[in-house]
């Protein structure tokens, strides 16, 4: 389902180029979220941490614990599947053409969770606790989107999986 490895366009960006134009819903970056999406387009995964050390995702204008100003923190891009589902019915395009696919909550090694898709993994091997790592897909200039694949799969493997 994930866009495979594409050509050299956008060589200055490290996100994988979609084989086809990005047809999924896009974020509407705002002044809080823009650094996250821009970093992802450079292959970096950012979360927030406030001066007192509270980490959070999604990015906000305040720390949800203490109300302080959060700062950006680059994280490893490694985590585990906290929970997941296999979506087998979705009438909305383009997802209807990509069924079935995995939606997962990934718990980062740094402690916060984010939603994403698991790729490069047979459906019957997906399990809670599975180590995963991030890979970025370029959705549009300055917007990279994090996807996840099994950590053991190495870094060179790309391509479609159900």
């Amino acid at each position, binding site marked *: 389902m994930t866009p495979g490895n594409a050509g050299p366009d956008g060589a200055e960006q490290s996100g994988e180029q979609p084989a086809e134009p990005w047809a999924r819903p896009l974020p*509407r970056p705002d002044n809080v979220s823009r650094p996250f999406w821009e970093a992802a387009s450079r292959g970096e995964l950012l979360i927030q941490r406030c001066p007192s050390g509270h980490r959070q995702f999604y990015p906000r204008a305040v720390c949800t614990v203490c109300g302080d100003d959060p700062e950006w923190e680059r994280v490893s891009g490694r985590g585990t599947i906290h929970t997941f589902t296999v979506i087998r019915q979705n009438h909305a395009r383009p997802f209807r053409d990509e069924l079935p696919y995995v939606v997962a909550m990934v718990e980062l090694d740094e402690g916060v969770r984010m*939603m994403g898709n698991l790729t490069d993994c047979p459906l019957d091997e997906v399990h809670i606790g599975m180590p995963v790592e991030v890979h970025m897909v370029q959705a549009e200039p300055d917007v990279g989107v994090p996807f996840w694949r099994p950590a053991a799969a190495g870094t060179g493997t790309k391509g479609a999986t159900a």
Partner: protein
Amino acid sequence: MPDRAPVIVGTGLSDYPQAPHLDGVQHHAQAMQRALVDGGVAKGEIDGYLDAGGGGVMIDDAVTMAEYLGIDHRFIDGTMTGGSSFEFHVQHAAAAIRQGLCDTVLITYGSDQLSRMGRGLGTGGLGRGVKRFPGPQQYEAPFGNSLVGSYAMAAQRHMYEFGTTSEQLAEIAVGVREFAGLNPKAMYRDPITVDDVLGSRLIADPLHKLDCCVISDGGGAIVMTTAERARDLRQPPVYVLGAAGAQTHWNISQMPDFTDTAASRCGPVAFGQAGVAPADIDTIQFYDSFTITVMLLLEGLGFCARGEGGAFVKEGHLRRGGDLPLNTDGGGLSSSHPGMRGIFLLIEAARQLRGQAGEAQVPDCELALACGSGGWLSCIGAVILGREHP
């Protein structure tokens, strides 16, 4: 000193499960008319109005509907917590009545979801057709999750942590379907078995089609007033003994613990207000958007220990003839689910406490608990109703 204990005195359902002759606003209007007739209350008596809106394509928020219905209110509340809005409304209305902010409250809901939008809602993902998502949804929308998928992730985690099985979840759907068989208006009435549930296709693993609620049209209305006023009205009073709500998150990716809902926070508050315990409850009307929703509410409210929901449901408590019958109108799983089902839970609880539930009547029903779940297991509201004055 007038007796200002809050009482449900009138209830009404609009036409369901399929009503192409009504739009969302008309569901509100028809349900109101029926609730007023049911309670023997004149429309002009209403001086408090609560409405969550969100019923369909038409605008039906509280101020719009107060104008449309012609409500001259001293108290208005548009609290919107998703499908549990109406449990929160009862909490707020009860407080307003006790405080004398108003005397006679109307709560309405209406939706033409099935006739207007068809059945794709639950699996169409967020905001079908929208290209760009602002705010928190920008971190979910690119990934093609569905409404069903959100609950499926809770079910998957529950299975992982506690060994819960699809068979156990299916038991919930089977029991609710049995009650639907007693409701001539229910969308699906033929009995089903656990194997039928497991044999229905997977929508979002591990949830099958029959683990999911139906999609229907429908609306409801509730009239509340003081115990003092209720003495002169035509229906047996249904007392609000406890009402509490809590929120853990809104968007599913922010759920702090996928097997623990806000029921574990608001349940003890509602039971404390009512001075009763789970074992005292005679029937439960739970938001059964999905089978897992019921299991999480059972555990959260303390009807069984956390993680023991699977074993609990297999013991048959929730069945017709059990000691804790669930969703005696056929629930969202089999009867009706117009999008935000919380008001029907209260209406069915009232029907049971009045002793008007016909074949589905729970014997000696004195205490009922209605528990709504709104959003994506996000906002839980619990209301304990009884037929004796507190």
